[in-house]
C-alpha cells in the first residue's frame, strides 16, 4: 500500500505540527507515508473565489504529484472535498470550453484515492482506537465541508471517544458554520466575526480546554478570535490529539503562541 500525505498549503506554511502528527500517527499504525515534494495547493481558494481557470493547472499538478500512490491522505475535509467534488466539475467545464488537455483523466485518477484523515483511519485502516492518550477536556467542531460534502458523520467523534484520558464535551450548535469560509472571512468581515463569536461562545460554554477540529482553516479563524480575547481555550487539530500517546504526549514544536 503506497500512501502519500497531502499536507495542504495552509498546513505546510502555518501548521507543520498537524502534518507531523499525521506522519507520526500513520507510522505508529504501521503505514509507510511518503511526502511527494511536487505537491502544493488543491486550488480551493482560487476556485471558491471564482477563478476556475486558475485552478486547472493545480488539478493537473495534484494528479501528477500523487501519480503511482494508492491513497492520498489529507488532514483537511475541505481540501478532500475540493478534489472529490470539484475536480471532475472543473475538468468537465474545461472540456466544454475546449481545454481538456488530459484534465478529465487527471481528475478521474485523483478522485477515488483521495481520503480525508478520519475516513482513511476508519474506512481503510478500520480502526477507531488509534492508541492515543490525551488527558484533557475537548470539544469538537465539525467543519462544514467534512460534514456535508464528504459526509464524515460520526467518524471524528468516534476516534476522539476512543482516546484514553480524553473527556469529550458536546458543543451547542456544532453543525453550524464557524464563519471562516475562505475569502468570506475578509470579504464579509462583520458576518464572519458574528458567526465566529457565536461559535467561540458555545465552545467556551462547554468548559473544555481544547477546541478540536479536523480542518485548520476553520481553526485559524476561531483561534484568532480566541487569542484576541485572551480566552482560556486552545484550538488543536484532531490529528495532533490522535498522535499523542503516554510515552510521547502532544508537544507543539513550533515556537510562538499560535496554539
Amino acid at each position, binding site marked *: 500500500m503506497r500512501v502519500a500525505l497531502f499536507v495542504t498549503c495552509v498546513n505546510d506554511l502555518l501548521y507543520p505540527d498537524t502534518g507531523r502528527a499525521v506522519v507520526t500517527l500513520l507510522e505508529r499504525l504501521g503505514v509507510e507515508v511518503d511526502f511527494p515534494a511536487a505537491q502544493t*495547493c488543491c486550488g480551493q481558494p482560487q476556485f471558491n473565489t471564482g477563478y476556475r481557470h486558475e485552478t486547472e493547472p493545480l488539478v493537473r499538478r495534484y494528479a501528477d504529484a500523487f501519480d503511482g500512490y494508492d491513497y492520498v491522505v489529507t488532514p483537511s475535509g475541505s481540501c478532500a472535498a475540493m478534489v472529490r467534488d470539484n475536480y471532475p466539475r472543473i475538468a468537465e467545464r474545461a472540456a466544454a470550453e475546449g481545454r481538456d488537455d488530459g484534465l478529465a483523466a487527471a481528475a478521474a485518477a485523483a478522485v477515488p484515492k483521495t481520503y480525508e484523515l478520519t475516513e482513511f483511519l476508519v474506512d481503510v485502516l478500520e480502526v477507531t482506537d488509534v492508541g492515543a492518550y490525551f488527558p484533557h477536556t475537548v470539544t469538537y467542531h465539525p467543519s462544514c465541508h467534512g460534514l456535508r460534502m464528504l459526509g464524515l458523520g460520526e467518524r471524528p467523534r468516534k476516534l476522539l471517544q476512543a482516546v484514553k484520558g480524553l473527556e469529550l464535551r458536546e458543543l451547542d450548535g456544532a453543525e453550524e458554520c464557524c464563519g471562516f469560509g475562505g475569502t468570506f472571512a475578509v470579504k464579509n468581515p462583520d458576518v464572519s*466575526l458574528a458567526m465566529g463569536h457565536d461559535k467561540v461562545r458555545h465552545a467556551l460554554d462547554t468548559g473544555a480546554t481544547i477546541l478540536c477540529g479536523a480542518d485548520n482553516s476553520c481553526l485559524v479563524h476561531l483561534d484568532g478570535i480566541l487569542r484576541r480575547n485572551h480566552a482560556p481555550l486552545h484550538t488543536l487539530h484532531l490529528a495532533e490529539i490522535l498522535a499523542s500517546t503516554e510515552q510521547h504526549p502532544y508537544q507543539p514544536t513550533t515556537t510562538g503562541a499560535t496554539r
Partner: protein
Amino acid sequence: MSGTYLGLPSFPDAAHTSTHDTQLRANLTHATHTIRTKRATAINELPDWPQLRTAGAAIKDHTLHHLDHYLLQLETAVTNAGGTVHWATDADEANRITTHIIHTTGETEVVKVKSMATQETGLNEALHTAGIHAYETDLAELIVQLAHDKPSHILVPAIHKNRTEIRDIFHNEMAHWGRPAPDHLTDNPTDLAEAARLHLREKFLRTKIGISGANFMIAETGTLVVVESEGNGRMCLTLPDTLISIVGIEKIIPTFQDLEVFLQTLPRSSTAERMNPYTTMWTGTTTHDGPKNFHLILLDNGRTDTLADTTGRQALRCIRCSACLNVCPVYERAGGHAYGSPYPGPIGAILTPQLRGTTTPLDASLPYASTLCGACYDVCPVAINIPEILVHLRERVVQGGPVTVRGTRTTIKPAKGHAAERAAMRAGRWTLDHPTAWSATQRMAGATRRLHPRRLPLPGPAKAWSDARDLPEVPAQGFRAWWQQREKDTQRGKGEQK
C-alpha cells in the same frame, strides 16, 4: 427586476449595520432557530422525503426543459376557461398591464395577497404613482406596509420585528390606512391578529379588485394555486370582481397530479406543517361565483435568460419555501434587508444576480454572501445546489464570460474592482504551480516571521482579518523543510549503520 432596490449598499456594507443591531439579531436568531427545529421534526415524519425531493426536482427540470410547450398549453387552458393571458417581458411591462386593467375598471383601490412577483416588479410603487392604493392583506406583509418598510423574509416578511414593535406599528399607523387599531391594544398575538382582522375585513368587503401571485400554475387545466396559512389570501382571491394574477413563468407544472409532490414538500419545508391551512385553486371564471374577470400576467423579467445558463437554471426550480433562509448562518446575522431584493438569503444570493445581472456593486457582492457551508443545499426540497451556483456566479463576477441578456448571447466583462485580486490569484497560482517557488516563499515566511505583526495597520484584506482576530504566527520551519530534514537524517542514519 425593478429599480426599487437600486442604489442600495453592497452586502458587506449593509451587513455592517445589521450585524450590530442587537434587537434585530435577537429577533432573527429566535425566529429562525424555532422554525428550523420544527421543520426538522416535520421532515423526519416522512420516510420518503428523499424520493419526494428527487421527484420535485425532476418535475421542475422537465417543465423548465419544455417551458415553451407548457406555457402555451397553459395559455390555451386559461383562455378556454374564460380568463385573459398577458405576457410581460419585464417589470415595467407587467406594471403597465396591471395599471391599465385597473384603470379600465375605474377603480382606485386594490387588495393584495402576498406576492413576491409584484415585489420584484415594484408594483405597489407603480400603482401609487398611477393614483391607485394597494393594500397588503397578508398579516406580515401588512405589518411591513404599515411600517413603510420592506419585507426581510420570503415567508415571514416581518420576521425582523417582534410583537411589541408590531403593536406600536398598528397603534401608530393603522388609522392612516383605514380602520384604526383598537384603543389600549396589547402585544398579545391574539389581540394583534384581531386588530388586523377588523382592519382588513373592511377592505375585503369594499374593494373590487384583487391582485395575487401564485405558488403553482397547472398547464393541463389552467388552474392557479395559492398556498397560505391565514385565509386572508382566499378573501382576496374570491371576493373582488376582478382578479389579476402576476406570476413568474417558472411557477408552472404540467399536470394536476404533479401537485401531490409539492403539497407535501412545501408546507413541511416552509412552516413545518403537515398541510397548510388554506389551499386556494382557481381556473378562469365561473358564473355566479368568484371574480367575474380574471387576468393572468406571465412574468419573464430575466427568467428565460437564467434558463439559458446550464448551471444557474437550477435556481428556477425554487418553490419559495424559505427553508434555506432559516438554516443560513449568514442570513441569520445579516438579516433580509442586506440582500437588497425581495429574495433574501441563499436563494436570493443566486436568484437576484441572475435576474438582475451583476453590474451594480450590490448584485456583484451577493454571490459572496455565503461561506459555502452547504446547509442550504441540504434542506432544499427541490435539491438546488446553491453552493455550486454561488461559485459559478462568482466566476461571472471576477472573470466575466458568456451570458444571455434579454435573449441575446453576449460576453460580459468582469465586475469592477477585482483587478488587484485577479492579479494576486494569478501570481499565487504561478507560485503554486512551481514547487520550488512555493518552498522559497515558505522559507522566506519562516525567516521573516518576526516581522509579521499580529495586528496589521494595513488597509484591505489583512485589516479586515486582523481588526478583531489575531493573525497566526508563522512557524520557524514549515512542514516541507521539516520533512526534508527528516529524510536527510534517516539517510545519514542508514549510512552510519553500514
